[in-house]
């Protein structure tokens, strides 16, 4: 660790941007280590949403009056920001959804039911969040598309040989895998995954729900076909998610939801659809949420992904060292390329009990199956405790976690 070679990152200044971090939990300082579930919101996001509600709000897209025109501009600007964030070729590659889960369901229900044919397969991995599993399972059960599961190694990485073997028969039409595991913290080798899939004629969808928070993603460099993320983990509001897709795929896909805003013309006999991406966005959009997410993206970009990644690496390294020194504590997964999400178990104490004890000291961690039951099964576990880091996480917070965990161990001994 060489502090000088890393971009400046002033965590104290960043913490001041997040009002909630000043809260006390039962008299103790809040130590929020649950950002992978949902991140806290910086002042600029709150202010952007408040400004809209107080000064500039109306329904968008169809209004000819000042408030509607200005709100449309403010809302639609998020599409440009997302395109910039992902280095998408164009704003029309960006479909606004309700969350990551909705993005997966959109692709499963539209692309899955029209472009994929019975006899073809969807390939996911053993470490998917339910959001990238259940929609494909429902597709399989409804339309006869096969569902294949690429195994992971004991270290918690995608087994690349097995992955490639599962593509060998050419039946896989779509690979849909996580870019960063919400349980193990593993970053998957997206570039190789995509190259191999494309070589076997399969399209690739990436679950960037976790990764987009920590690393710069370049959809054109990756040549990824679909990518999903969710606003609330990227320091933005709830109620908004994103689907990136290549233009020709969006053009070929039928809409899933019908209603206002997604049509070109409507008659009882036949309706025609608006152009991409609007044909996938039925009804009044998440206007305030788009405005909030836009502020979040600009906030993260201003800090810069180099600085964010370096901060995350420093925190993770320290946390791994501190936690693995605790007697009876097992860190789950040892991937080479990993980020600030660490799952662990503590001998003699169930993860829920660990979480409750930590909570008493103001430390928020998650415990359970983390919406990844089949992964738990693969790991031979029922549940883990999970600490996850955000922009605002400090070394001192990690020390507090480790010190308190040592006491938890004693409590349950």
């Amino acid at each position, binding site marked *: 660790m060489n502090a000088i070679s890393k971009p400046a990152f002033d965590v104290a200044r960043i913490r001041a941007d997040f009002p909630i971090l000043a809260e006390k939990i039962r008299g103790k300082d809040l130590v929020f280590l649950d950002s992978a579930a949902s991140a806290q919101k910086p002042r600029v996001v709150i202010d952007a949403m408040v400004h809209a509600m107080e000064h500039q709000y109306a329904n968008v897209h169809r*209004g*000819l009056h000042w408030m509607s*025109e200005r709100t449309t501009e403010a809302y639609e600007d998020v599409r440009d920001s997302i395109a910039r964030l992902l280095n998408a070729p164009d704003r029309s590659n960006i479909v606004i959804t309700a969350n990551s889960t909705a993005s997966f369901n959109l692709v499963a229900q539209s692309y899955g039911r029209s472009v994929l044919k019975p006899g073809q397969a969807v390939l996911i991995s053993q470490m998917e969040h339910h959001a990238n599993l259940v929609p494909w399972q429902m597709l399989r059960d409804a339309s006869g598309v096969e569902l294949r599961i690429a195994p992971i190694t004991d270290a918690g990485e995608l087994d690349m040989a097995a992955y490639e073997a599962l593509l060998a028969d050419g039946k896989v039409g779509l690979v849909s895998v996580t870019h960063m595991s919400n349980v193990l913290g593993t970053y998957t080798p997206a570039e190789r995954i995509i190259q191999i899939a494309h070589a076997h004629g399969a399209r690739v969808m990436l679950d960037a729900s976790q990764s987009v928070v920590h690393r710069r993603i370049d959809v054109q460099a990756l040549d990824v076909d679909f990518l999903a993320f969710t606003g609330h983990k990227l320091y933005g509001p709830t109620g908004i998610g994103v689907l990136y897709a290549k233009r020709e795929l969006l053009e070929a896909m039928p809409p899933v939801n019908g209603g206002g805003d997604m*049509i*070109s013309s409507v008659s009882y006999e036949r309706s025609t659809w*608006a152009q991409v991406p*609007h044909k996938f966005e039925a009804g009044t959009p998440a206007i305030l949420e788009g405005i909030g997410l836009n502020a979040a993206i600009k906030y993260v970009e201003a800090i810069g992904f180099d600085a964010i990644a370096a901060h995350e690496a420093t925190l993770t390294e320290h946390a791994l060292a501190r936690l693995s020194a605790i007697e009876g504590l097992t860190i789950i997964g040892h991937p080479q390329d990993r980020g600030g999400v660490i799952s662990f178990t503590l001998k003699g104490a169930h993860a829920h009990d660990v979480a409750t004890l930590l909570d008493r000291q103001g430390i928020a961690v998650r415990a359970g199956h983390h919406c990844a039951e089949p992964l738990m099964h693969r790991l031979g576990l029922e549940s883990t405790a999970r600490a996850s880091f955000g922009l605002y996480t400090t070394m001192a917070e990690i020390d507090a976690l480790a010190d308190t965990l040592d006491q938890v161990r004693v409590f349950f001994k």
Partner: protein
Amino acid sequence: MFEDLRDLYQQVILDRGRKPHHGRRLEVFDAEARGDNPMCGDRVQVFVRRDGEAVAEVGFEARGCAISIASADLMAEAVIGKTADEIAELTTAFTGMARTGNGGAPQLATLRPLAGVHEYPSRIKCATLPWMALKAAMAGKGNASSE
């Protein structure tokens, strides 16, 4: 009361919006296309008769506001005698003017009354819709959408 709107609704726009000179289907035409603005329901159908390389006549049928009808009408006059390339260039110049208000180019002279739309974001499409339809007609496509 609406003095500050005279920029947008210049007299020629009110006149042409009310009584366009070219608002009819041509009896003989070589190309036609429809333009739709799905957000407000405006529609314009443009008919083009050619004479060799150049456009000989343009007519249109439209439902829409004063801006879109006046724009179609002024367009029909502006493109007579022009080749496909010249029209493409004029379309770009006009679209730029509608977005920015900058109508300095000499070829925009008769179209300049529409420069005022740039201050009304949702009305820009009203002015450009006929041009989108003309572009589609010249390219042999049947439809254009203002989105």
